[in-house]
């Protein structure tokens, strides 16, 4: 569904991605792992168009989307939940959710109920300003908001950051369930490699902007040398 081919991305003189290639098939969770600064976030930002690559291509369903403006991605079926969650703190929970569906033709307000069913904690706070939410609730909000865009590809950047393990497990569980039921493709960036590999199908390990390993999640989890070298456990 989503193909990344030989992408090279620079920030000024700094080479962040040095020829990265990977595939994100439908109905699978592909985890991108590696240490801080390995280029994981840059990869997501390049895929969603926040950053333009110097070379290489990103394809969605065979169509080249590399140079599309960011704003057009939602309509193509790509939702990106950025690093730091991306809750708009000054808006209410309900308004944040509404933004999720705003650009989809035929979106209805009642669809927010689906998110409230998935994350009941949000229902109680629907008219409260988003800045009153806890970290876990915010993560639920942004995942819910992304889902309201009815994406076919979901990019998640470090969703577990700063969250308690129980909450992380809950959110990951919901994502896994959605993937299995609806054929959603997920590109999951995580520093917490252990949790990520527990729900992912495939893992791609980045180091200093290059792919050093691509394999099934089980194989990666079993490879002790690799884990110690690049994944921290």
């Amino acid at each position, binding site marked *: 569904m989503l193909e990344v081919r030989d992408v090279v991305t620079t920030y000024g003189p700094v080479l962040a991605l040095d020829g990265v290639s990977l595939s994100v098939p439908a109905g699978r969770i592909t985890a991108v792992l590696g240490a801080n600064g390995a280029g994981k976030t840059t990869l997501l930002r390049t895929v969603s168009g*926040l950053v333009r690559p110097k070379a290489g291509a990103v394809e969605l369903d065979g169509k080249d989307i590399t140079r599309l403006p*960011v704003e057009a991605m*939602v309509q193509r079926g790509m939702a990106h939940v950025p690093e730091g969650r991306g809750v708009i703190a000054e808006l209410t929970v309900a308004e944040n959710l509404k*933004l999720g569906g705003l650009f989809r033709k035929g979106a209805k307000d009642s669809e927010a109920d689906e998110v409230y069913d998935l994350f009941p904690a949000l229902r109680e706070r629907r008219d409260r300003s988003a800045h009153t939410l806890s970290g876990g609730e915010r993560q639920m909000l942004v995942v819910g908001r992304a889902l309201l865009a009815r994406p076919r590809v979901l990019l998640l950047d470090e969703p577990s950051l700063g969250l308690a393990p129980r909450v992380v497990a809950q959110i990951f569980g919901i994502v896994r369930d959605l993937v299995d039921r609806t054929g959603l493709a997920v590109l999951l960036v995580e520093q917490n490699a252990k949790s990520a590999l527990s729900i992912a199908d495939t893992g791609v390990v980045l180091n200093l902007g290059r792919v050093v390993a691509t394999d099934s999640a089980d194989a990666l989890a079993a490879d002790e040398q690799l884990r110690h070298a690049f994944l921290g456990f």
Partner: protein
Amino acid sequence: MQQFLNLTTTGITFGVLYAAFALCLVLIFRATRIINFAQGAQAAFTTYLAYELVVERDQPYWVGFLVALVAGFLLGAFIERVVVRRVETGPEINAVIVTLGLFVALEALIGILFGQDFLGFPAPFDASSGFAVGDTQIAQTANDRYRILSVLVALGLLVALFRFTDVGLRLRAAAFGQEVARLLGVRVGRMLTLGWALAGLFGSLAGVLIAGGGFISPGFMQTSVIFGFVAAVLGGLDSFVGAIVGGLVLGLTQSYVAGYVDGDLVNMGALAVLLVVLLAKPGGLFSSSVARKV
């Protein structure tokens, strides 16, 4: 006592007008983090357009009024798209300097096109007689009531736009979370332009209302810029309510200083208020306690 009442009434009327102007500044600041020092000159320019139509070409007041508002909208959009867009990112000081340059250039342009003389601007309602409540005279004219009402109606419409419409939601998203909004499909650039256009419209409204029943000159909005700015800062630059309260405070300050001290010291009075408040509460009286966490 009567003087106090008169000064207070005048203060409130002008306070409302300054509040309207302050709202424009807050609107733009919230959207693009820039103080538009040219706002007053924009409003003055569109007011002069109205003058040209109504006084020189015998058009009805409301035609001039409408033209001023539309011109304000378009001018605001044009300035954002063509000039300000390029300095929206980058050092703060650049944007300040650019809007100052526009301020001076626009005012000078007015002077070239229309001259420096003071010109009378018509009021659509009686601007001379107050009314009595029992024994006390209230120095509020029909024109004053029209001014206050217009601002309140416009404000109501603006708030409704922001609160209850999709466009308003997108405007707010673009203002508060640019990058996230883009990821959600919001055309942030267009929203910023729209924000400036709305501010331009509102500013033009303030300009026409301030002018009505009085005189205009190329610099007639200068005091409003200062007062509107101080009012907005008093409110913390992020709060609409703060801007309104700030506007009223400034309007009353102007009235009392002019009445009890001297008309010439009015601007310095505003400066004094600004400095006192900023030294006590650097974030403004109503500074938002919402830390921008994510």
